[in-house]
């Protein structure tokens, strides 16, 4: 429990201030380490791609040179096939258009088409004479193709070499071919070697950097540990978030009234209550959109540091690993879905302002790293197909998934979901349940959600807190909550409810 006497508070505040500075330094270091590691992977991928395309281009150039020779040495039929492969598609396209034009004109003459040129009746058939004309055209076209094939064959045959020349040039060709294969192999080996060298140097440099950062980090964490020994806020090891007598008063309205509960690490925690009970206000207090009038919100970060969230500003909350979604889906309409996710990683970008103006290498690399993350998150939530579209016009369920994908972008520790199932049908709700469970398992996060859909809540949550008019009604497992009479009366409905309904119907 937090002590609230004044001088003790000021004393702890000084220490708290120092600790906050340490926290932000630690976060920055961790961020740099994370980005550094991802940078190595991205760089490796980039190099691999580059080398691959270089080798492919080189091979292509060599092939080009040898190709003519290869043609000359092939039997005539094979050469003809190659030439046919080049010229036939063009001829076929032309013929196809010819056919379609004729068919269209015939259809138009028989009045089968509407104004735009489509068939009025999809089963309509042409008359027999028209069909005959079309068949004639097809036959003519067939003949053309055969003629082409024949002429090319003759050309190939004429240009065949005689036996003696053939043998020598074949030998030369085989040698050149082997030479080409060797050169390509050499190039690939060379590129691979260069890449490996580069990667080794790059990795070494990065790892060295990361090690420096890690050393700094351990130093800071040691200082933090020292300083934290004097901290008054402590949580049991398994608790992630604790609300301690939190109240939020707006003028005369007590939206949240002395609310206290614990959210354990790694669990899915639900907050339920009738409309107007103050659930969203609780969220906003936790994420510091409102400063609680009274009470403490104590949180344990991923590394185990215990913080008093009240001291932090709303835009710093995400750096502590707390991400949230919104009840009224707030996506940025002017950007594509992918870019919406990139914004979520905003705090992870380290490049400075001027580097961004000049689009320096660092900026481009970081952008790549974040893009990879975004693609992974999109894939996880099944949004890859639409990643470049703007979110405007997408169905509501998709928008909710975008919000969910956003929470995966910044290394979250606590994910707060504000009515994630609102507006979803049964099927979508089931998918959402699976997705939330999957996220909890794969990303090892704690999930805190507010929801009206009792099926989802009872199914998904490990613990539930029920509130009404800002006050806590009960807290416990889903079974306990369901059977709690106070909760039933306030929210879930009792056996008396049926009587009330019957009575009102009479009226």
């Amino acid at each position: 429990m937090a002590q609230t006497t004044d001088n003790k508070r000021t004393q702890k505040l000084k220490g708290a201030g120092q600790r906050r500075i340490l926290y932000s330094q630690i976060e920055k270091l961790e961020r740099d380490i994370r980005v550094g590691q991802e940078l190595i992977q991205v760089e490796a991928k980039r190099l691999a791609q580059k080398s691959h395309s270089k080798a492919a281009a080189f091979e292509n150039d060599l092939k080009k040179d040898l190709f003519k020779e290869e043609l000359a040495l092939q039997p005539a039929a094979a050469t003809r096939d190659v030439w046919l492969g080049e010229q036939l598609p063009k001829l076929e396209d032309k013929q196809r258009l010819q056919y379609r034009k004729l068919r269209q004109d015939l259809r138009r003459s028989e009045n089968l088409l509407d104004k735009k040129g489509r068939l009025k009746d999809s089963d309509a058939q042409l008359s027999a004479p028209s069909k005959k004309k079309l068949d004639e055209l097809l036959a003519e076209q067939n003949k053309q193709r055969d003629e082409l094939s024949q002429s090319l064959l003759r050309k190939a045959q004429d240009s065949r070499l005689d036996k003696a020349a053939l043998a020598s040039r074949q030998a030369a060709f085989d040698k050149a071919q082997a030479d080409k294969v060797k050169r390509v192999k050499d190039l690939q080996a060379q590129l691979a070697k260069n890449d490996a060298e580069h990667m080794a140097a790059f990795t070494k440099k990065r790892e060295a950097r990361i090690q420096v950062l890690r050393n700094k980090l351990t130093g800071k964490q040691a200082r933090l540990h020292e300083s934290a020994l004097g901290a008054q806020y402590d949580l049991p090891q398994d608790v992630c978030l604790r609300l301690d007598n939190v109240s939020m008063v707006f003028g005369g309205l007590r939206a949240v009234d002395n609310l206290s509960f614990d959210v354990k690490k790694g669990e899915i925690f639900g907050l339920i209550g009738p409309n107007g009970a103050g659930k969203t206000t609780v969220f906003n207090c936790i994420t510091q959109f409102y400063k609680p009038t009274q009470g403490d919100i104590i949180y344990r970060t991923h590394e185990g540091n215990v913080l008093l969230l009240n001291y932090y500003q709303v835009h710093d909350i995400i750096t502590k690993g707390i991400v949230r979604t919104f009840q009224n889906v707030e996506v940025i309409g002017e950007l594509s879905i992918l870019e919406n996710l990139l914004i979520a990683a905003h705090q992870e970008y380290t490049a400075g302002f001027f580097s961004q103006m000049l689009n320096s290498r660092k900026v481009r690399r970081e952008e790549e790293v974040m893009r990879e993350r975004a693609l992974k998150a999109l894939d996880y939530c099944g949004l890859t197909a639409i990643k470049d579209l703007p979110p405007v016009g997408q169905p509501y369920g998709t928008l909710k998934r975008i919000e969910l994908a956003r929470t995966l972008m910044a290394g979250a520790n606590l994910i707060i979901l504000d009515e994630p199932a609102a507006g979803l049908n049964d099927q979508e709700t089931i998918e959402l349940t699976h997705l939330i469970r999957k996220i909890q398992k794969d990303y090892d996060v704690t999930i805190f959600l507010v929801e009206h859909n009792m099926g989802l809540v009872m199914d998904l949550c490990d613990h539930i807190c029920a509130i009404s008019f800002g006050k806590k009604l009960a807290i416990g497992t889903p079974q306990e909550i369901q059977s709690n009479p106070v909760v039933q009366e306030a929210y879930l409905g009792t056996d008396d409810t049926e009587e009330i309904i019957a009575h009102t119907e009479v009226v």
Partner: protein
Amino acid sequence: MQNQYTLTSTGRIKKIIRHPFAGFVLIGVILISLQLIAILSGGAWPKSSMLNGFASVMIYAIVGYGFTYLLGYAGLASLGTAGFVGLGAYITAYVLRNMPGVPYIAVILGTLLISLILGTIVGFISLRIEGIFLAIVTLGLCEIFYQLFSNWLDFTNGPNGASISKYPIFQTFFNMSRRDAQSAFYILLVFITVGLMMLTYNLGKSSTGRAMLAMKNSSSAAQAMGISLLKYRLLAFLLSTAYAGLGGVMFMSYLRYSAPQNYTIMFSLNILAAVLIGGSRNLIGTFLGCFIVFGMTPIFLQDITLFRENPWIINVTIGAIIVMVVMVYPGGLVQLANNVKSFFKTTIADRRLYKYGTDD
């Protein structure tokens, strides 16, 4: 056996054309060629008035690029731009007249510094005051600047206007003739304009630009994602006032004369119109918008008697365009261009359907 050469040359050209900087460079090339043709033809065509027109378009465009941060990215309506441009112009005049020996680059940097300080102040003001009321307050700010320019005789020479006698760098340092210095400065302007376009584009596409857009669309979501409203609002104002100040320096350096009447609310409204017409975030659109609002008159319409004697027609048209853009075409010229493109595509597709029927 198959022939599998990848086409390289046409593919590469397509890639270059599609690069966002291609448009910027193209504009620069066109502008420079106009100047070169003028030099080669000994001033016959393009006339120097036309080149001056293009130069002022470029200067206004510089101010416009800064304004895109405010309007297009951060969604803040500020009418104080005129004041900052004037400030840049008057500082340039004052320093170059009264402090000989101060290098030009110092003038630019000094102006930027002062603009940044003032921009910070305005940025802080904007945090206290909600969106549309900000326009009102910045309107007042514009008036303050106007009063300042008209009344502070020691600094600005009042309603008679301030001037400098020589083109900086080219006349003062290289001792070129007036004509040559003008042409050289014009070319310098082109490089500055195109360079700024590139920088602005980069910043807009980076995380800073995205953060501003997030702030504009949904401040709650932005904050939840770690974007400090204070920081990015300030940044938007800083950038726009810096660009405006730079534009002012260029204004005085190229036109070498400026009076308070240049810096009224109409100036701010015209910049707003130009950026809006172009499509608030698009840089080529902003340039074209500036061309329409500021350039049509001196470049083309001066030669048509109807417009020379009735300048109000142009201004009324610009006002009408603002109204239409906001009501019907919020995307400005960019949206128009896209619509034209898709119109052509659909027309061609319809034509094909008519001629060849469906493909089955």
